[in-house]
């Protein structure tokens, strides 16, 4: 299968994502922000970085790139879109996902390993994970505090659309150790159609044991399986 990896001016984890895909034995193509052509991608990754310097607000300017029009269409047709870090911010700005990502509660940039509890395996991005399993995946962001109004949050929970939550290493509540102070410790969510995932942590940085963890590969592997099986995703009753 083929992953399309978006490149905006200021994107920097496109190379890391390409490598993670390569480790899995798959192909990737770079998608330039000014072009609308997704080049036959089966899954589009919006990688980390500081698109347009993240000036004004993270993702605010990137959302208007011509590439994003195609991504909108692709997503509307059920295509798989994975937004990582800056990609998650762009997806929220583009209203492909609800809520917003705001300045970390600590007001500091944080680069460290976080532990994520898998809250649902009923998505094309988590089907290879174990439900309630804990993944070690690093974060690297200054604005990752997920914010949404209470009704949106309730709806996300009710529809099992919270994909990952920050937890302590042993799976217990993260509390003060939250990397950003996200509401309800949310680290990643999926869209209503479950085909768009946004997450602040970087699964591509957890692609090899040499670098500390390969837990992130569950996410890429899930995508590969999902594409292979073309499974439709619905919420388990």
């Amino acid at each position: 299968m083929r992953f399309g990896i978006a490149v905006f001016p200021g994107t920097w984890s496109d190379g890391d994502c390409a490598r993670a895909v390569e480790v899995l034995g798959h192909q990737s193509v770079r998608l330039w922000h000014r072009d609308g052509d997704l080049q036959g991608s089966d899954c589009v990754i919006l990688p980390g970085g500081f698109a347009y310097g993240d000036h004004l607000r993270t993702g605010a300017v990137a959302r208007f790139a011509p590439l994003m029009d195609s991504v909108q269409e692709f997503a509307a047709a059920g295509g798989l879109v994975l937004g990582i870090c800056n990609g998650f911010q762009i997806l929220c700005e583009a209203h492909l996902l609800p809520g917003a990502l705001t300045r970390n509660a600590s007001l500091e940039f944080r680069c460290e390993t976080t532990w994520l509890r898998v809250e649902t395996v009923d998505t094309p991005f988590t089907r290879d994970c174990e439900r309630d399993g804990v993944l070690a995946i690093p974060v690297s962001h200054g604005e990752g505090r997920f914010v949404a109004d209470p009704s949106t949050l309730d709806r996300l929970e009710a529809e099992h659309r919270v994909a990952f939550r920050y937890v302590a290493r042993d799976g217990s509540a993260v509390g003060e150790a939250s990397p950003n102070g996200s509401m309800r410790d949310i680290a990643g969510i999926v869209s209503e159609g479950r085909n768009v995932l946004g997450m602040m942590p970087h699964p591509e940085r957890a692609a090899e044991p040499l670098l500390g963890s390969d837990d992130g590969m569950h996410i890429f592997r899930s995508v590969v399986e999902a594409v292979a099986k073309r499974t439709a995703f619905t919420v388990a009753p």
Partner: protein
Amino acid sequence: MTAAVPVSDATLAEVALTRGEYELACRGLGRVPTEVELGVIGAMWSEHCGYKTSKPLLARLPVSGARVLQGPGENAGAVDIGGGLACVFKIESHNHPSAIEPYQGAATGVGGILRDVFTMGARPVALLDSLRFGPFDEPAQRHLLDGVVAGIGGYGNCIGVPTVGGEIYFDESYRHNCLVNAMCVGVIEQSKLTRAAAAGPGNLVLLVGADTGRDGIHGATFASVELNEASSERRPAVQVGNPFLEKCLMEVCVTLAGDPRIVAMQDLGAAGLTSSSAELAHRGGCGIEMDVSRISRRERGMTPYEVMLSESQERMLLVVRPQDAASVQVEFDRWDLHSDVIGTVTDTGRLVVSDGGAVVCDLPLDLLIDDVPLRHPEALRPAGLDEALSVDPFAMTPPWSMGETLLRLIGSPNIGSRRSIFRRYDHQVGDDTVVLPGGDAALLRVRGTAGAIALTTDGNARYAALDPRRGAAIAVCEAARNVVAVGATPVAVTNCLNFGNPEKPEVFWQLSEAVEGMREACLALGVPVVSGNVSLYNDTEGVSIDPTTVIGMVGHLEDLERRCAAGFGQDGDSVLLVGPVGMDLGGSEYQRLAHGVNAGPRPTLDLDLERRVQSAVLEMIAAGLLSSCHDLAEGGLAVALAESCILGGRGAQLSERLFALGAPVVQAGLLFGESQSRFLASSAATGVGAVRAIARRHDVDVRELGTTGGDRVTVIDVFDLALIELARAHAAALMPAR
């Protein structure tokens, strides 16, 4: 030509020239310089660009070696790291701007050093930062620290280059002059290394990147004078950086490396267009002609003087053949970067600047670069030094038990965990950081090879305050030890000489001694100096900082599998001291904490022993005998032990009785003394024999101290501490209530 300016003392002060130097310039020129010319001469003859004080000293450094591809003289040095690849690196200071505006000062420091590396075509793969502040318990110092760290992160995180290492010291000496040194490391195919020498008269000169504004005019001369009360009047000398623009610029420059259309690339740094164009032309033995009216401006009404001296960030000069200009410009357009054709390469050996039609500057490059009037200040050993050196550290009774001392040391600002700092830096982007910050040298895998590069910066100025020569030599040795501890072979050095006002004889003495010390150690260890930077005038109201030589070192590890970590790797291993038992308390952190002084004989240093110990350790690691290896530095043996326990998440019991013998001050000397040339390693019990055999061959001592394991850190009959208690103190060191 525009009319000559009558030159007042105030004008000369603005361009930082003495009247004598001014007269020399007039004589060299055969006439009185115009206003623009005066600004150009002032900048080129400043300490910052012209190295007028340090040049003769720097000439003493060893700069060649089998692996050196590029020594000092270019934007950065380069060494061979196998697989046809070069590692390109340099360190640079941004002390003065950071003291005034910590965030932007530090951020633009990072931006500047990144450009020095990608100017050579290399893709930056790592940053390191070496910082010095006044006492940590002072809110004003923490505020500075916070701003500087935010600025380094702000630039590095945004551009996507990991900050993988560095160091921080807090000392009274830096209260009014913080030091912010940043090192950048890049990798490139050797065949694509791009030089900054103009060639081919008739070729075009392109200025690309940011628009030119009135940023930091006189920044170069500003860094060449002392800070004083009136410095705030020079405040616009601080620039605001744009890492996003630099990221785009970097992508294009890295792509263009090795492209036949690019004749030369040169970044704009101190003194902006003036020094970059002059050096570019001079390196190539050419001349250059530019029209400043063709330069995109951010502000209206800028004079040619302002345009020539602007230090607006994120700009580059390129030399291209005329037929290629348009196609090169397209590459920049793709990233929304505009480029202006501002001039041509000539064969006149002159720097000619016009504004529309009128020539405003026409100077011979030789005068600007070769004829910099060197200063040979008097050198004088400071009077108080003998007194400080003659203090007997063993006459001071330890105030605390050894266990309590260790807890205090491990939780002190100069020794405790730096996690609260480095977690604010993205240290993983690029997915090559194998050894993260917190250990000894950082280790980065090199794609396309089986190997890795080891990176570190070091420079303890407490020893240097007592003996600048020894201090600088120790800095080199310590950097090498950090590189060796991860299993890598030291390859080459970059350095930043941070000193006070060299016009003071004592400071000039320190500077020349430090260069000598660096020279001796580099020769002894076989590591040439390939690049560096000099930051003088770190004084406030007449008080100079301690002489601070910061060494940045790159090491190479052939086979990534043969690396070693600093934390104890498994239970039941033998804990080994490789190198001598020592008790040098002079200049130690123990002495600072326990007695608040820096005095007594500085640590002894035997360069030949140092070399033998390092070779032995490298051989042990390569043979797969060590399950951990950590160098001994601040806080001595006991601190190294605690660190290996904390990093490895397991305790250790030392049964060696040596430490329990003698008076408390002797125990303190053995446990906390900072004797050089030592490592704390661990090895499976079955490997100890082989370790000893290697050590014997190198004529190096190995002493078996005890065993790893458990949840306590114990030295028999001396102290017995819970690992968790040590870990907590360590973690809390730099975590004040905000």
